Every structure is written in C-alpha cells, then in structure tokens.
C-alpha cells in the first residue's frame, strides 16, 4: 500500500514537471494558434577590419585662356598701362575641373585658384568653391557623387604677354568629413 502511494507521488511529480516544460516551450514559440514564430538572433564576428581608403577621380580640361583685344592699344605714360576697349576680354577653353568620389567615406572638396607671377591685373574665380561629396554606394560605381567647378578670369593681361604662359594653379583640396560618433 505504502509502495503504491510513493509510486503515485513520483508519477504525479513527473507529470507536473512535464506540464511545466510544455508551458515554457509554448510561451517562447506560439503567439497565435496555427502560427509559429521562430526567434532569429545574430551577431557580427570577424577578424578583418573595414579599411577606410579614399579613392577620388579628378579630371580637367586644357585650361587655355586667351585675352582677346579687338581695339587699339594705347600706352598711357602716366599709369604705365595700355588702355583697352570695353569689348576686350578673356576667352576660356576646357576650364572645368571635375571631382568624383569613389571612396567608402564622404569627402569635402574645395577649389581655389592662385595667380602666377605674371604681369597682369587678372584674378581667377572658381564657380564652386566647396562641396561635400557623399560616400560611394556599394555596387553602384556609376552613381558616384561628383562636383564640377569652372575657372573664370577677370581683369587684363599685360599686352606684351603674347606667348603662352602659365597663369596660375588650381588647388583641389580633399578633406575627410568629421563624423559624429
């Protein structure tokens, strides 16, 4: 009789534990009847680092500037300059610089012109002085962000400068964009 009672108690305990286990499983996997949701967990494990490497393309035209004068030039002994007519001016060819960002990071691009030590009162201006280029998008090199800047000259060139000479330098600055942590 006693053995029967002990056996019944063990059986009851086993059944109770079995129900408990089922209850935990149900809580984790079943949300609505007939629908099963399986939790998917993931984490990034890797030994290699993503390398930040900049890759930028710069293209420019022939950058030829000619100062055209249509009227007579008269020497002014007071100012030591030639007087020129209002129709005179600069004719430019291939005066555009294009920068394209193929990096995996954004880049700040700036353009500037520095006049060479040449006789003349001319100054140079870039149409775009600075612009941020977005980082390249994976698998889309043809859609890389780019910017164009055109150089224009104002003022005059010394009338004696009849042969081709270097008028200045264009500097393209490529600065890393500071990102917020």
């Amino acid at each position, binding site marked *: 009789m006693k053995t029967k009672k002990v056996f019944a108690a063990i059986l009851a305990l086993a059944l109770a534990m079995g129900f408990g286990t089922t209850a935990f499983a149900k809580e984790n996997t079943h949300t609505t009847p007939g629908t099963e949701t399986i939790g998917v967990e993931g984490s990034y494990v890797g030994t290699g680092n993503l*390398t930040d490497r900049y890759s930028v393309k*710069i293209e420019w*035209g022939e950058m030829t500037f000619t100062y055209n004068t249509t009227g007579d030039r008269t020497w002014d002994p007071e100012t030591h300059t030639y007087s020129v007519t209002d129709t005179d001016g600069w004719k430019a060819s291939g005066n555009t610089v294009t920068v394209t960002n193929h990096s995996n990071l954004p880049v700040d691009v700036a353009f500037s012109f520095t006049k060479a030590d040449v006789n003349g009162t001319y100054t140079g201006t870039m149409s775009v002085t600075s612009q941020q280029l977005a980082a390249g998008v994976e698998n889309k090199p043809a859609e890389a962000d780019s910017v164009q800047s055109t150089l224009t000259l104002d003022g005059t060139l010394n009338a004696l400068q009849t042969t081709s000479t270097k008028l200045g330098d264009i500097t393209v600055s*490529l*600065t890393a964009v500071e990102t917020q942590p």
Partner: protein
Amino acid sequence: MAAHERKKEEKSRTKWLLLFLLLLLLIASISITIWALFFRRVPTLAPDYAPRQEEPYAEDMGDDSDEKLTQVEGGGAVSLTYTTEVHIVLSEERATLYFANPSKSNQDMVLQILVQDVVIAQSGTILPGKQIEKLDLLEDAAAKLQPGGYNGEFVVLYYQPDTHEKTIVNTEIPVNITVES
C-alpha cells in the same frame, strides 16, 4: 723725444685696432660659413618638371587590366587612392603611409608630406599603376620633429607623362601624422 714716443704709441694703438677689426671680421666670416653649412634652412620647392628618378619604394598595384580614364587633349584625368594616416619613426627617418596612382590615371605624380608648411618628405615620380607604403624623410626633417601627433598634409603634384611638365592642377589632402622616436 716725447712727441716721437706719442707718435709711436699712437701707431701701435692703430695697429692693435686694425688687428682687432681683422679678428672681428674673421670671427664673423667663420660664423657665417658655419651657419651656411650646417644651420641654413634650404626650402624644398615643388619641381616644375617631374624628377628623373622614379620613387624607389613604388610597387606595382597589379591593376594593369584597368582601362585608362578618358582625357581631353591638353587636359588631365587622374585617380588617386590613399589613406589619411601617416606614421613616422624618427630613428628610421621614414614615414609609413598608403598612396597609389592607379593604372587608369593619365598623369605621373609626385607626393610631398608637409608639416606646418615645411616639406618633410618628397617622393620621386610615381607612375600610373604604382603604390607606395613608405617614404624616406628629407635630410634634417627628423631633427625638426618630436614624438607626438601633427596635423600634416599631402600635396600631390601631377606631371604630363610626355613632356614631364607640371600641370595646372594640384591636390592638397589633410592627414594625421603620428611621430614616434
């Protein structure tokens, strides 16, 4: 007799004065020679023509199959790849960096590293398809640096491969320089 003595004394004084002046002149000329030989700062100027010597540390990038960039006549098209971290070991008088002129570029390049507007390293000619990972510091450059961090700059100069003339466009890239003894 006294007048003769005075005259003799005066003559002797003049002689000493002359000797003293000559000695001063000698000291001044020795000092100038020592300064000119050992302490004069010789500015490093960007060459107007590409150096005849190719950069000795330049290595093949292995991208010969890449198609050349389209370039207008008289213009230029370059692609540059780089990182903005430079490491300098003073005892080795060498900078570790990454800079490449990919095969698709149409211009030769020269790389300068500047700290506070002073050129501390300058490469030889880096042809298209070449990359560098180290660069020797210029003579005396190590003496100007101390262990620590510097805001430096890459200056990239482009040269026409046929005429070796410097082009109108150049590039400036701010870099972080870490110096250790």
